[in-house]
C-alpha cells in the first residue's frame, strides 16, 4: 500500500524487508552467471563454477577493439533515444485525447488503433519492409526510427492512466479559460510523470534491445545496433559466448541505470487530488 504501516521498525517490518531483499536477490541471481561468464575464457564458460579460474578482461577488450562497438552503442543510443522522446510525446497526446476528450467515433477509432497491437512484427514484416523501401527509408536512420515510434501499447497505457485522473481537474481548468493544449501541457503532462517515466524506460529498453527490425532494414554495417553486433559473435559451428556475455553485460548497463534513476518518479504519488 502507498501508506506506511507504522512509524516504528518492528518485527513485521524486518520480516518484510528480509523477504523483499531475499526475493530480489534470488530474482537477479541467474544473471550472476552472465556476469561471471563475461570474465571467463572460452573453454571455461560451461564449467559449473561461478568464479572464473582465470579471470580475464580480454573479452571486454576484444569487444571494444575488434568491432566498432562504441559506434554501435552510439547508434543505438541515438535511435532508441529519439524514438523514446517522439513516442512519449505523440502517445501522451493521443492517450489524453482518448481518455479525456469527446469526439465522434472515439471508441471505435481507439479500438482500431488497439487492433494494431494484435499482430507482432514477424507477421507484418514482409509488407512493412516493402512499404518502407518504397518510402526510401532502407539503410538509413529514418527507417530505423520512424516505423518503431508507432505502437498502440503506449497509447493504451497512457489512456488508462489518464482515465484515472479526476475529471474535476480538467473542468476547473476549462472554467479558468485554459485551451485544450494548455490542459494537456500544463496539467496532464506534469501529473503523468510516473507513467511517463515508466514508458520512457520501456520504450528505450525495447528499442535498445531491438534486433529483428534493425537487422532487416539495414545492410550497411555502420548502422548496426548493439544486438545485431552481438549476434555477429555467433559462428556456424561455435559461438563466442564469452564475447556475447561480455557485450551483453555492457549493453544491459544503460537501461539499468536509466531505470535506477527514473524509479523515484515511478513511486512519487499524486500528492493531492487537486481539489483544495
Amino acid at each position, binding site marked *: 500500500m502507498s501508506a506506511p504501516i507504522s512509524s516504528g521498525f518492528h518485527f513485521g517490518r524486518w520480516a518484510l524487508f528480509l523477504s523483499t531483499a531475499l526475493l530480489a536477490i534470488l530474482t537477479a541471481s541467474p544473471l550472476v552467471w552472465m556476469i561471471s561468464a563475461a570474465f571467463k575464457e572460452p573453454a571455461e564458460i560451461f564449467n559449473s563454477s561461478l568464479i572464473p579460474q582465470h579471470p580475464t578482461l580480454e573479452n571486454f577488450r576484444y569487444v571494444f577493439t575488434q568491432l566498432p562497438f562504441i559506434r554501435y552503442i552510439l547508434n543505438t543510443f541515438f535511435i532508441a533515444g529519439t524514438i523514446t522522446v517522439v513516442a512519449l510525446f505523440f502517445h501522451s497526446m493521443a492517450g489524453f485525447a482518448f481518455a479525456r476528450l469527446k469526439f465522434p467515433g472515439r471508441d471505435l477509432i481507439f479500438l482500431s488503433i488497439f487492433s494494431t497491437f494484435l499482430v507482432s512484427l514477424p507477421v507484418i514484416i514482409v509488407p512493412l519492409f516493402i512499404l518502407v523501401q518504397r518510402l526510401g527509408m532502407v539503410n538509413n536512420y529514418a527507417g530505423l526510427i520512424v516505423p518503431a515510434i508507432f505502437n498502440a501499447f503506449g497509447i493504451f497505457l497512457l489512456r488508462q492512466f489518464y482515465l484515472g485522473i479526476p475529471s474535476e481537474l480538467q473542468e476547473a481548468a476549462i472554467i479558468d479559460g485554459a485551451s485544450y493544449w494548455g490542459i494537456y501541457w500544463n496539467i496532464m503532462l506534469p501529473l503523468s510523470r510516473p507513467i511517463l517515466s515508466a514508458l520512457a524506460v520501456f520504450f528505450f529498453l525495447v528499442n535498445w534491445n531491438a534486433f529483428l527490425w534493425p537487422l532487416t532494414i539495414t545492410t550497411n554495417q555502420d548502422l548496426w545496433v548493439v544486438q545485431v553486433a552481438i549476434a555477429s559473435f555467433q*559462428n556456424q559451428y561455435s559461438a563466442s559466448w564469452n564475447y556475447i556475455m561480455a557485450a551483453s553485460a555492457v549493453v544491459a548497463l544503460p537501461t539499468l541505470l536509466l531505470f535506477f534513476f527514473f524509479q523515484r518518479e515511478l513511486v512519487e504519488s499524486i500528492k493531492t487530488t487537486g481539489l483544495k
Partner: protein
Amino acid sequence: MLDSPTTDTPQDEAPANPLTTGSMTRREVITTGGKFIVAAAVSSTFSPFTINVKAAPVKTLSFWQFYAPGGQVGTQSKWFEDCVKAWNATHDVKVELQYVPVQDYMSGSKLQTAFASGQGPDIFIISPGDFLRYYNGGVLVDLTPYMEEAARNDFFPNVMETRIVDGKIYGLPMEVEPMAMYYSVKAFQEAGLSEADIPKTWDQFLEIARKLTKGNRFGCLFETGPGYYQTFTWYPFMWQGSGDIASSDGKKSAFNSPGTIQALKFWQDAIQQNVAPRNFLGGGAWDVVANLASGYCAMQNLGIWGVAALRETAKDFEYGVFPLPLPPNGQAKTIFGGWAFVANAKGKNPEEAAKFCVSALGSMQDDSIQRVVDWCTKAKSDVSPRKSALEKATAEGGYSSAAMKLFKDEIFPTGRGEPRVPPEVYKAVSDAIQACQLGGADPKQTAEEASQRIESFLAGYTGAPLR
C-alpha cells in the same frame, strides 16, 4: 498551440454542408490520404515486384552469407574477401559481400523477407536441406553451361547429386562435412578404456556410453533440438539399416521400414538409458567446445568441423574420432553436410552471378582449385568436394593429422549427401524423431504415422524429385 479554433481557422474555409464541420474535413483528409496510401501500397505490393533494373546496367551484385565481412573466424572471413577481390579485379560487374548473422541466416527471416519483396541477394549460399525450397521457387540458376566439362567431372558425384536436377547443376558445394563420433581421451582413460574399446556396433556404443556416464558427465550426445540439423545427423543411422525417406523415384514414401524403426529406437534408447542428455550446452549439439571439451559428454556425434573448432578454441583438448557405429547387419554409412554457392535467377544479373559462382569454385583454373583447398583445410576443416582439390590438399598436408586422415580415408567414402526434401517431409521426419527420442513414443507406430504423412504429401507434390 491548439487555441480556440475560431482564431486559427479562416472564415472562408467554412464548408457549406452542415455535415462537413471542421473535424469532418480533417477526418476526410486522413481517410482520403489513407485510401491513397492503401491503393499505392496494394498496387505496388501485389504487382510483379522487382524495381525493374534490367534497363539500367548493373554494377554491383550482392553476395549474402554469414562469414564476411566482420565474421568471427578471421581465416574464413578473409577467404571470402579474397575470393571477391579476385573477381572484382578482373570484372566490370563487382560483387559486394553482405554479412548476415548466422542464426538469422539459417532460421531467421531476413533472407526470406528479402526474397518475398523481390530484393533477394544475387549470390548466396544454401545447404542441401534448403535446396528444394529455392529450386521449386524458380530461384536457382542452372550453372552447367558456365562450367567446363572437366570441372563438372571434377566434383565427386555423391556430393553433387543433391544439387543436380535433370542432369543440370544448380549449386556448387564449397565443402563436404561428414559426420562421425568424437570421444574424449581423458574420459576414456578415467573409465579404464582404451582405443581397443572403441565401439563398432550400436550395442557396443550404448555399453561404452554406460561406462562413461559418471557423475556430472553423460556418455554420449546426440542432437535433441528440433531442426534441420537434428534430422541431418539422424539420417545416416536410418541408412545404415537400408532405410530411406522416399523411394528412388521420389514418388512414394519408404519411411516405414525396419531401418527407420531401429534408428528411431537407437536414439530413444540412448536417452532412456540415461547415457545421453536431453539438452546440450552452448548453441547446439554441433558445439564441440561447449559439450565435449567442457566434459559434459564423453562422446559426441559430430562432423568434421569439430577439428577446426577445437584447434581454434581448445588446443589442448585430447580427442579421437571414429566412424559411426553400425546396427546388426548394417552397412557403413555416414552423411555429408556442406553449403553451396548459388546464383539468384530472379536477381539483378543472373548470368554474371552464375559466372562468379563458377569462377570462384567450379573452374579448372589453378586459383579456383586452390581456393577450394584453402577453404577446406586452412579456413575450416572439411573434405574437399573436388577430386583435384582433394589431391592438392593432401599433397599440401591438409589431411595429415590423425583425425583429418580418418575422415578423408575411412569416413568420406561411406558418405551420402544430405537429402533434399520439401519442408513438409522434413517436418514429418523431425516430428517422428522428436516423438521417439524425447516423447518416448513407440518407434514402429511413429514410423508408420510419419510414413503416411510423407505419402499423402508426395501424392500432391509436383516439384523436383527428392534425393
